[in-house]
Structure formats: structure tokens, C-alpha cells
């Protein structure tokens, strides 16, 4: 099919046996049989590989960010609690007096 298309194209450019109407230049696109087997192994491999690393790195990055956020909150709360505990006896004393 490709060769006949190329010949027609060459003939058209050369001016010999040139098609006169649009319909004369029509061609048919037919799929090859067993199209699934024509898939590129390289593409499939790259797709699989990309999927793995995108998912794993996204998981690691999101986990790391979440851990940092929680750590910051824990540190802040611990400091606030330590301060509150330190101030608690003085407060009690002040309330008692």
C-alpha cells in the first residue's frame, strides 16, 4: 500500500498519469492484522517504568511532607504544654492568694 501510494505520488509530481480529481487521489487506510502485536516493546517498557517511579516518588514526597507537618505541630504543642505546666503552680498560687 505504501509503495503504490508513493508511486502515485511520484507520478502525480512528474505529471504523468496525474489524477485529475480529488476522488482519483483517494486512498484507503487499512489496519494491519494482529495490531496488538505491533505495539512497541520500548514504549511499553518506558510506560511501566515511568508509572513505577512516579507512584513511588509521589508516595515518598507526600509522606515526607506530611511527616514534617506533623513534626512541626508536635514540637509546637510540646513547647506550649511545657510552658503551661511550668506556669501551672504559679497560677494556682496566684488563684489561692
Amino acid at each position, binding site marked *: 500500500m505504501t509503495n503504490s501510494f508513493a508511486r502515485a505520488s511520484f507520478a502525480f509530481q512528474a505529471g504523468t498519469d496525474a489524477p485529475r480529481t480529488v476522488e482519483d487521489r483517494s486512498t484507503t487506510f487499512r489496519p494491519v492484522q494482529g495490531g496488538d502485536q505491533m*505495539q512497541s*516493546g520500548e514504549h511499553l517498557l518506558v510506560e511501566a517504568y515511568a508509572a*513505577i517511579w512516579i*507512584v513511588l516518588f509521589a508516595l515518598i514526597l507526600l*509522606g515526607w511532607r506530611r511527616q514534617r507537618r506533623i*513534626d512541626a505541630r*508536635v514540637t509546637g*504543642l*510540646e513547647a506550649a504544654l511545657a510552658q503551661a505546666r*511550668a506556669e501551672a503552680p504559679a497560677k494556682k498560687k496566684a488563684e489561692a492568694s
Partner: protein
Amino acid sequence: MAAALALPCRTAMTEPRRAAVSDRASARARTFDGIFYGLLGVTAICTIWTIHAIFLKAPTEATMGIVQKIFYFHVPIAYSMYLGATACFVGSAGYLYNGKQGWDSLARAGAEVAVVMGLLVMITGPLWAAKAWGVYWTWDPRLTTQMLSVLLYVAYLVLRLFTGDGDAERRFAAALGVLGAANLPIIHFSVQKWGGTHPAVITGKGGGLTDPAMVSTLMFGFLSFTLFSIVLLWSRYRIDLSSSRLADLEQEALELGIGED
């Protein structure tokens, strides 16, 4: 991070004792951090070497061509899913036995790893199948049981995400984590018992890897993804423990009348 592994302490303590406990917890947390980052470094090196081996050392397979190289990470990822699911089973059983936070965190981390690895198996497998079988998916026993297992662990995570964090919910999830493990041997032996189109490459007779470079690449794949699973498990376990510690602190802050910030 130092505070993350410190155990919640609800009992009344004097200030010096509290400080001593906190120091010990911080020192222990720093040691764990060192081990964790060391493990992360080893995992990175192994992973880079595995990538190198897959693309530059392992020969291209004669019949399937380059797409066969998916095998070197598809199989180790499937094995990593088993590791995650096993951690979920152990954590769930431990929680049902003694109800401690650590076991529950392990179960949850294991389920997360099982879902991620299971989804990766279900992405890489069909890409290989597209070339080898001419279709992305077929209702083969191995594929079907694998999908069921992934759905089970997705159900576990959905349950944990959308229900409360009370003991009853945790116990229900733990029961699911224990029962979910029953499907693992079914996945493993489905090829031998029910046939189907999925190959059984690794068998007691040595499997279908004839070239030593192919075997060593697969072994590196197993090593890398084992380490990767441990790192992921540990990381998710730490996050869950930290979240639990945060919840305890928030409760204590509320009791002491400390504001949101």
C-alpha cells in the same frame, strides 16, 4: 521527628522525670532516624544498581524482546505487595491480641504498602501482557485473585480513612487485615492449581531464566524492592505513630485549656 517516636505519657510525672523521659525518647528517636536514613541510602544505591543491571547488563530476551525487562521489576513488586500484606496481617493480629498503638500503625502501614505495590503490579503486568498476549487484561486466575487482593486492601484503607479512630473501628479493620491475608497463598498457587495464561517463571526447578546476568538482575530487583518496602513501611509507620502522638498532645492541650496555636 525526635518527638515522633516518643511514647505518649499520660501518667502524672514530676518535671525532672518528664525531662529525663523526654531526653531518652529523643536520643532513641535520633538513633532510629540515623538507621532510617542509612537504610534509605542503601536502598537508593541498590535501586540505581538494579536500573543499571536491567538496562545495561541483562540481555534482551529472544522471543519477547525488550518488553521482557518489565519482568525484573514486575515480579519483585508483586513480592513487595506480599511483604506489605504480611505486615498488615502481623500488625492486625498483634492489635487484636493486645490492642497497642504500634501494632495498629504497622497494620495500616502494611496495607498502604500492599495497595501501592499491588497497583504497580496491575499497571506493569498489563503493559507486559499487551505485548506478550496481545491484550492488556484477561480474567486469568492469577490476575483475578491479585485484583481481589488489591481491592481488599483498598477497602481496608477506605475503612480507616472514613470511619472514626476508635477501638471498635480499629478492631474491625484488624479483622479485615487478618482475613485479607488468606488470599495471598491463593494468588501464589493459582497458576499451579488453575492454570490460565499467566506464566510460572520462578519455580522449584529454577525457572525460565537461563542467562546468569538475567538471574543476578532479578536478584538485585528483589533486594531493591525488599529494601524499598521496608523503607516505605517504616516511613508510613512513623507517620501513623506521629499522628497518634499528635492526637494525644492535642487532647492534653485541650485538658490544660491551651488554645489551638
